[in-house]
């Protein structure tokens, strides 16, 4: 394995994060803080607790997931799309490293960055609400798994996209609505029965539910269902990326 190459790709991608510190880290933290102020304090103070959890605390896992998903996808898709767009990808493609090493470098960096953002948001949330994490191990596990899975998904989008429009298409039109409608700000038990059933088709529901369970032992679906769904999505992304590499999709003529 060409560890040196994985290291330089990882380092290069992380360096990009520090160079654009405001955009990369300050901006998601700021927007999450705004959510806490508006939903948690202003509106939340008028909402009763949900299943025994104060509303302000209840939205923390959903808000972290919202940032994790959008940030993982944005980082990883941009990381691979940009060198493709500028043409500098030629160097990576002509270097003695396998596609999986390329993946490790880019996805590893994007996932690390999302993880850092997740932790920062969690710490920020601590300033606004009381947090008592019931299952720290599961919380970390879900956090890391989500970072990796959605960074991988972002990498796929970055490979697929042929222009900036396409790069934004899925995060904006698919991911954001799914997260907002996936129970970030409410428990799906609050919905009418018909919409409860429809909501179960949204994979993000399982993600947020599992993550919320690790905090408060409160969940819309069983933790094991959540785990199977997220691992299933990870397997789907891995299979897709394996197919892309095998066929040289958008990377090799």
């Amino acid at each position, binding site marked *: 394995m*060409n*560890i*040196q*190459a994985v*290291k*330089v*790709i990882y380092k*290069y991608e992380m360096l990009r994060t520090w*160079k654009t510190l405001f955009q990369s880290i300050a901006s998601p933290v700021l927007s999450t803080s705004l959510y806490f102020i508006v939903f948690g304090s202003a509106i939340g103070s008028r909402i009763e607790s949900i299943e025994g959890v104060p509303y302000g605390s209840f939205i923390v896992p959903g808000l972290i997931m919202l940032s994790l998903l959008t940030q993982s996808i944005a980082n990883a898709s941009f990381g691979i799309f940009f*060198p493709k767009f*500028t*043409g*500098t990808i*030629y*160097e*990576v*493609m*002509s*270097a*003695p*490293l396998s596609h999986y090493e390329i993946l490790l470098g880019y996805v590893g960096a994007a996932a690390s960055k999302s993880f850092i953002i997740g932790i920062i948001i969690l710490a920020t949330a601590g300033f606004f609400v009381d947090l008592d994490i019931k299952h720290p191990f599961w919380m970390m596990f879900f956090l890391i798994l989500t970072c990796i899975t959605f960074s991988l998904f972002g990498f796929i989008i970055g490979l697929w996209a042929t222009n900036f429009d396409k790069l934004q298409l899925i995060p904006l039109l698919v991911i954001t609505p799914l997260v907002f409608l996936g129970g970030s700000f409410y428990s799906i038990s609050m919905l009418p029965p018909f919409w409860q059933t429809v909501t179960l088709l949204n994979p993000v529901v399982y993600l947020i539910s599992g993550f919320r369970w690790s905090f408060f032992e409160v969940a819309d679906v069983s933790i094991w269902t959540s785990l199977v769904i997220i691992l299933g999505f990870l397997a789907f992304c891995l299979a897709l990326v394996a197919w892309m590499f095998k066929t*040289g999709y958008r990377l*090799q*003529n």
Partner: protein
Amino acid sequence: MKTIIAINNLSKQYASGHQALKKINLEIKSGEIIALLGPNGAGKTTLISVICGLVSPSSGSVHVNGFNIIKDYRETRALIGLVPQELTLSAFESVWNTLNFSRGLFGKKPNKAYIEQLLKDLSLFDKKDTELRLLSGGMKRRVLIGKALSHEPRILFLDEPTAGVDVELRKDMWNIVRRLRDTGVTIILTTHYIEEAEEIADRVGIISDGELLLVEEKHALMQKLGKKQLVLELRDAIDHIPESLNAYALTLSDEGYKLTYRYDTRSDRTGITTLMKAINASSLTLKDLQTQQSSLEDIFIDLISSKENLK
């Protein structure tokens, strides 16, 4: 000399149906400079891209230092440095970082002394902390060469290294190439500037429409295929060529003072002796005469057009 790159029956057809390479066979010797000459769209870049792993071949094989480029890609790619045609660089990176990034990509541990020396050789050392977007076009080209050399390759591909580069810089680039060859690096360059091939290459391959028309040692090629012309300067101007000389397809120029005769150095009979006899027998008096060898450019145009004619 040892063969470092062996290309056998290499073909490439793109998904669009365009046949970019047609059964290319070529052996490149270690330590030589070979120029692949051809018009735009001839398949030069595709050929390079296949060897470097950017384009997958449709059929045929390529071996680099005995290793197959697909099966043993780690071994082959580690030996190769590629300077692409376009000035593709990350805008906000520094010269120093980009060279170290390239070195790392090729699996080499950081080597400060080597990169420093490389930058000095390329007259870039004083720009080492400058962001790439602030460099001039010529400097960017040198950075790309630096990146390609950062992992100490034994083979360097230069894809149109002097396209859009001014005369001064072009000569500078040629000197860099020659210095590299002196260190034992094998250099394969593509160009559509005949002058470039003529100036620095040991061998010249001519590619047109995906086919390698010929590969020859440069001087042998010029001698073998070269046409010469004999220019006869007359003491007195004439307004038409005498009938007795009609058989020689002469052209009259310089207000009737100059007769030009073109002949092929490859043929046994160049026709010069009989022409001279015929001139002797005519009423013409010669003031001077000289011969001129055709350049690689003339040979190139001849080859390409004769291929077009065959179609």
